[in-house]
């Protein structure tokens, strides 16, 4: 079974703090993704990576950066957290096979910025 783990289930930070969310997958997947999920807005893609050290912006990259130094690990960084970044953050990975590139999700991190 594919396993995607996220470093924290719940996180509370203060406005202006630097926040690191980490994601690790154990299936040697090529692609990794970061989403945020908000009521009424669904899942929105922040960034994704299709290879080590490669990254591409998703639909809402503003206020976020990412790092992929190793194939199995994809980090999301909030340089200066703001209250509008309070959300559920979901990491996913996929094999990168194209036609039916199924994504497998981690359990999520519920981030609250005060």
């Amino acid at each position, binding site marked *: 079974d594919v396993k995607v783990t996220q470093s924290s289930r719940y996180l509370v930070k203060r406005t202006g703090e630097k926040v690191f969310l980490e994601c690790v997958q154990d299936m040697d997947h090529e692609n990794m993704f970061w989403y945020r999920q908000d009521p009424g807005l*669904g899942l929105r893609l922040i960034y*994704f990576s299709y290879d080590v050290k490669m990254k591409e912006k998703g639909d809402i990259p503003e206020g976020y950066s990412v790092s992929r130094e190793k194939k199995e690990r994809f980090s999301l960084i909030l340089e200066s957290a703001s209250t509008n970044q309070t959300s559920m953050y979901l990491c*996913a990975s996929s094999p990168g096979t194209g*036609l*039916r*590139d199924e994504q497998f999700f981690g359990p999520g991190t519920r981030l609250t910025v005060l």
Partner: protein
Amino acid sequence: TQLLEQSPQFLSIQEGENLTVYCNSSSVFSSLQWYRQEPGEGPVLLVTVVTGGEVKKLKRLTFQFGDARKDSSLHITAAQPGDTGLYLCAGNRAGSYQLTFGKGTKLSVIP
């Protein structure tokens, strides 16, 4: 632009009833996935459909991909409280690693 429309948004039914959830688009997808998400958890993949007209069954759940690969449906027979959750459809567009997600159908099955 919302490329995948799911309906209904909310559904509350009694245990034992049948229901159908729809996922519609004007775009063609190379494959379409259905996920179920429970509160406070990440989405869990239920099924992937690839061929137009394809029907897949997973116990009491039946998934269908439209002939033109633009739409899909999920039918649940004799719903149980354990079916409660948010059902998400997501489509792969040809040549893209990204998934386009619908906003989901929140299902509540009342005992």
